[in-house]
């Protein structure tokens, strides 16, 4: 494709330079700082892996990683199926105008800035002046759960708000994938007597499996860098119950001026992202192998059964 090796490098040089300056260099710098104790002023002191050891014994880091796992798992459990079902339902309505209408309505929260969404929900859920408190008081005579003030509830409230905002994006990605599934497959399934549910399970899901993976990756990376929703709605509280790694990294780096541990946490987040990426890719490599092995085994069993019948 390339005439010479030099052409190849010339073509990728602009993009590579930008990538190196704005991505690779800061990552290398964070790695470097993570080995130092440095307040941001003057020169730092080399401490080796001490920052990592301190971080791993920091209860807030543990809480933030636990919150990240809960966030990701609950998003996989609720946001992913919900967005898939919505995309599937809208695909059924397509090409009627109502399909476009529902798509726009569900996608609308995604185009609003996260800061505005977080602020809006903070006001709605406000224990003193919020709309929900108002209705609860008028209908039931009680303020109801303390959505953002109860340390056992706050993470679920945040996950709900996040799901409300980003389901539309996942749905849109699924919609694009579902549109590309050949219609003949559904026609053939219908002739074979498959109902809507069976068609969805045995045709749509396998055909959009790559998209499921992309959505899972987007949810995972989005969660690892969750910042604005935490910053606006809870500030990591109450009592650090809603701490997330990115937000805690910001706190210790820029609020407490501990650049060493802050950089070490950034490196940990990067490692978590790499592990998640590899994990999800591996899962999606293994599933088709298992499914096809299972199908081959089924096929072989059927053949064996038919052979026995014919004898």
């Amino acid at each position, binding site marked *: 494709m390339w005439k010479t090796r030099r052409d190849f490098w010339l073509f990728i040089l602009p993009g590579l330079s930008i990538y190196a300056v704005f991505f690779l260099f800061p990552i290398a710098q964070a790695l470097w700082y993570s080995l130092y104790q440095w307040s941001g002023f003057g020169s730092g002191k080399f401490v080796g892996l001490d920052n990592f050891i301190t971080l791993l014994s920091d209860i807030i880091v543990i809480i933030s990683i636990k919150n990240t796992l809960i966030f990701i798992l609950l998003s996989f459990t609720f946001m992913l199926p919900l967005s898939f079902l919505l995309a599937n339902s809208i695909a059924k309505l397509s090409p009627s105008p109502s399909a476009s209408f529902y798509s726009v309505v569900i996608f609308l929260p995604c185009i609003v800035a996260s800061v505005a969404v977080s602020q809006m929900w903070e006001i709605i859920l406000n*224990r003193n002046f919020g709309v929900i408190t108002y209705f609860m008081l008028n209908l039931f005579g009680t303020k109801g759960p303390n959505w953002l003030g109860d340390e056992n509830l706050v993470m679920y409230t945040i996950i709900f708000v996040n799901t409300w905002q980003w389901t539309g994006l996942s749905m849109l990605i699924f919609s694009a994938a579902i549109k590309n599934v050949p219609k003949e497959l559904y026609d053939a399934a219908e002739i074979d007597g498959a109902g809507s549910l069976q068609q969805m399970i045995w045709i749509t899901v396998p055909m959009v499996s790559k998209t499921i993976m992309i959505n899972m990756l987007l949810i995972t990376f989005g969660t690892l860098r969750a910042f604005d929703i935490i910053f606006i709605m809870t500030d990591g509280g109450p009592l650090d119950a809603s701490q997330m790694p990115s937000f805690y990294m910001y706190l210790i780096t820029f609020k407490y001026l501990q650049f060493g541990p802050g950089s070490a946490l950034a490196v940990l987040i990067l490692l978590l992202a790499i592990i998640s990426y590899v994990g999800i890719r591996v899962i999606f490599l293994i599933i088709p192998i298992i499914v096809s092995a299972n199908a081959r085994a089924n096929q072989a069993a059927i053949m064996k059964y038919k052979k026995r019948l014919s004898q």
Partner: protein
Amino acid sequence: MRKIIGIVLACFFYATSTFGVTLDFYHLWPKGGPTISDDCLWDGVETFEAENSDIKINWMPDPVDQWDVKIKAMYSAGKLPHVFATQPADFQSFKDAQLVRKLNDVIADDPDWGIIPGSHKTIYNPDDGGIYGIAFSGYFELIYYNQKLFDENGLEYPKTWDELLNVVDTFVDAGIIPFATGGKDGWIVSIQSHYLMDREVGFDYFYDSLMGGKRENTWDNPGYIRAFDRLAKLAKHGAFGDNVLANGYGDGASLFYSGQAAMFLMGSWEINSAKDSENAEHIRMGNYVSIPGGQGDQTAVTRGYGKSFAIRAGLSDEEDKAAVKFLKHITSKEVSLCQLEGGELTGTILPEGATPDVPRLMIEHFDIFDNAKSSWAAYGEFTLPAMYGEWNKMGQQLMAGKIDGKEAARYLEEQRLKIHFNE
């Protein structure tokens, strides 16, 4: 060709002579912002530009949270603006970095400037005797209270700890939040514990333990344990309401101004909002209560200068001259008068013969200050950010009833040794 070159050169010289010096001015007082200093500063800049056509001011305000982070990043990168707002806690960290201009010569050269002696003590480096900033906005931290709610519940403003507990219990029984507190923002919790700690041990001990310099001034001393237990006790009595850790600063203020809460321990920067609130006529000012057996001055008031203006070191002569001129203008007696009339303390004296129209609440602030035997700067002015971060965290834990005073004190002492002595 010569003509063209001549025209180009003429344009170039005209352009450079017209622009003169441009000064980047980074701060936290946006035009039309909530405090009176916002407007006073903007007016000051406008008049300065009108009087000095050769100096252009690049006005760069940011909200306080963003400013707090960005200015630290600027220090770290060694890329400070020409003139900028700074705060004492940051100064503790950057004073050795030699990025900021010493102002001693400028102050000595202009005795008419009117700087209040001592107003720059928090941005003073005792190691080199250098004054590195001019105070722009000062504050008191006192209790705003709603007299109407006190009257309706047959209460008087408390002067002692026991009276305070009685007031808290009575308000809780009446369904009124005793203290409007935005505990989500840890610094608000620390204002409360600051008073309790200072009252228990006295400012000298308090100051040294916060600065961290004296090893023997520990955080797990009996006085601090008692202070932390008192904070926990207040919370247990319901002094801060049932949503204290989810309420932010703004929520706390709204609870007080709307009459849902009876008291609000906050800085004098709230005067403007207080005098415009729906309960303005009922709002009064009170000092923090005295603590039985406390070693500190039981009348002491928290008062200080939070934000100052500084000039970057290493500017060219022309830029430096312009920056000094600008600094003098925005901290002039005229700007000071404007701020005081809006209810803010300043670092500069008033013009001779000025009869300022000061808000009632500001006068009440001064009355309490007159009756106090001493006044001290707030903790944020001399505590390292990492330490007050931990302190804020413990305050929240105490308010939530998760730990007792002893546990909080022990944890903070561990952190002090780690942060100040690398142990």
